[in-house]
């Protein structure tokens, strides 16, 4: 049980290398499930390893509870980590793998046995305790790695893409188990993944990173509803958000967004004030595929703006259909009701839900209307 504080932490691997982690400043609350997400090479693992004590901090401080741990060795930080490749000790049995950290701490044998058995029971690997890691399947190894962390009862749990080597079904199942584990253990979890679905489903709070920098911090819902910049908007949500270059036209009640492809969308009243300084200027309009509907099967109670588009390809997903549309040569994606009659080559009338538009400044790529202090650094939200 512990809170973790990153204080303007920076990591540079070599004098001339770019910053792997750039001014990472964040407080992780006790019992939080924090997920670091971002594209490959953005510095997620490095951020985690700095906390684990596996890399040296270049600048800044890290605290666990009130203890400055910059110079504390990994072994003395009271953390446990699950590695992507599991990193099981190949020469030890499953039992010894799980017991290793406890023996080092000179915990009595009886208690070790009890803790290991307990964890093995929870994870369903009680029959495997005598085996060596090489005699296990990938999923079983993953469980052992998890068990090795659990028995330690650490104050912070770290995970570096622990599910990426599992097949799709096992991944979903294990995801649910880790969530359950977090609830029952009541420990701080810091979890790294590049998979935004994993991040959305597991996190109490998500940190989106790109090129070493924090792009946005917030609950899954916040990130989905109010992405603060185009990177987060494009990264969170699957399939990804569509972007259109538009020009702000008209005045007062007639304020509308005219796309370079020709169609126009009215600005909803709440957003008019934000756009005051953008009159006759270019902005970027983002809309998620799930907020574009087939006009014939529009959900009730939405304010829609209709755009005629040509159907390029359709993908039946079961409950929904992904429709790849073209308007003036610009391709975009709509996720529509499965009863749609859209067929490739036909034209359909797409209904844009204008209450779900996201507007960005094309130069700064920041969301338009973002309060200045939010832009500088995202405040930690309350953990749920």
């Amino acid at each position, binding site marked *: 049980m512990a809170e973790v504080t990153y204080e303007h932490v920076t990591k540079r691997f070599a004098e001339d290398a770019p910053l792997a982690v750039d001014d990472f400043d964040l407080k992780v609350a006790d019992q939080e499930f924090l997920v670091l997400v971002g594209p490959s090479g953005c510095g997620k693992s490095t951020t985690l390893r700095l906390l*684990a*004590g*596996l890399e040296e901090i270049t600048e800044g401080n890290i605290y666990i509870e009130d203890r400055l741990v910059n110079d504390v*060795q*990994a*072994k*003395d*930080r009271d*953390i*446990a*980590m699950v*590695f*992507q*490749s599991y*990193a*099981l*000790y*190949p*020469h*030890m049995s499953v039992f010894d793998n799980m017991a*290793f*950290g406890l023996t*080092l*701490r000179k915990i009595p044998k009886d208690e070790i046995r009890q803790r290991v058995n307990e964890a093995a029971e929870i994870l369903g690997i009680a029959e495997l305790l005598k085996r060596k890691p*090489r005699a296990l399947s990938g999923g079983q190894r993953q469980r052992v790695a998890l068990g*090795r962390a659990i028995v*330690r009862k650490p104050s912070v749990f*770290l995970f570096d893409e622990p599910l990426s080597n599992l097949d799709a079904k096992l991944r979903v199942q294990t995801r649910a188990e880790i969530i359950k584990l977090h609830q029952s253990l009541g420990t701080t979890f810091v979890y790294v993944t590049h998979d935004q679905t994993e991040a959305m489903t597991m996190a109490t709070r998500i940190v989106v990173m790109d090129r070493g920098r924090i792009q946005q911090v917030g609950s899954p819902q916040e990130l989905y509803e109010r992405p603060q910049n185009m990177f987060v908007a494009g990264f969170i949500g699957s399939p990804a958000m569509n972007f259109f270059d538009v020009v702000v036209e008209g005045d007062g009640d007639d304020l509308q967004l005219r796309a370079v492809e020709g169609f126009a969308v009215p600005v909803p009243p709440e957003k008019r004030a934000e756009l005051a300084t953008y009159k006759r200027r270019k902005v970027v309009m983002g809309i998620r595929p799930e907020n574009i509907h087939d006009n014939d099967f529009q959900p009730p109670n939405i304010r829609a703006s209709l755009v005629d588009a040509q159907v390029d390809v359709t993908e039946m997903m079961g409950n929904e259909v992904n429709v790849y549309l073209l308007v003036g040569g610009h391709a975009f994606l709509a996720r529509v009701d499965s009863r749609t009659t859209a067929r490739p080559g036909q034209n359909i009338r797409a209904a844009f839900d204008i209450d779900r538009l996201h507007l960005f400044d094309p130069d700064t790529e920041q969301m338009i209307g973002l309060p200045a202090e939010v832009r500088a650094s995202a405040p930690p939200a309350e953990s749920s």
Partner: protein
Amino acid sequence: MIGRAWWIPWLWLAPTLALLGVFLVYPSVDTVRRSFLDERSREFVGFDNYQTIIDNPNSLAADTHAALLNNMLWLTVFTAVCVGLGLIMAVMTARVRYEAAAKAAIFVPMAISFVAVAVIWRFMYEVDPDVGTVNAIFSELGKDPVAWLNNTQSPQRPFVDLPPADSPAPFQVNNFALIAVGVWNWTGFTLVILSAGLKSIPDDVMEAARVDGAGEWQIFRRIILPIMSPTIVVVTTTLVIQTLKTFDLVFVMTNGRFKTDVVATLFYKEAFVFRDFGVGAALAVVLLLFVVPIMVLTIRRFQFQEEIR
């Protein structure tokens, strides 16, 4: 493969079977036979040759006891020091940037033949401190020069030396001087192989141990050592075999004088200088008996490897 004729594998093995049969198996059997025959291999003499080795009647010219003891000394000291140094250096060099250069420096002696090694080291061990490097260092430190290889001030006479005045064989300084040369020669071998073994341990396993609470020493003892143990066994076995066969170095450096004989050099003397094939063969058999436990160990290791394949 299904349908391969039964004799095909034996065809592939034929050259090997022939060569090993003629050059290793037949001589081994023949040597055992001769060790029970007289010096010209004509008459059966029972265990007389072995008795000769035990009685050591000719201890000034051919000291069988010293040879056996010296071989044990080589077996233990040489092997332990080589493996130990190699392991320490493998772990240490892995942490510096000039690793490749450091390893190459230590490996170079491995590429030098024992004959050249002997030339170098006779030179290093020269008694005159103006010429011999080791004694030059000794005199810098204010100590008297040491006759590293003679161990005695007696004049050199082939095959007949006065016994050393002070310590009994094998704990003579010249044996250790020879072993030091062997260590210098072979540490590169252990270093290169052990360091490759070390590299084959994934980084994240060591990191996991670190996070689990292991310090550097515990990581070494509880992770690195056990994971590397097959490699360490390979290296140790190779070295032990090497020590049992130790011949060239002693032969060229001292020719076994001053009680530095090992079994191999003494065997050579008996067979080719004294022309006593019987005692020579018996010595070889004794050497082989030293080898048996190691052979058993090696075979066990291979069976173990079969299981995990």
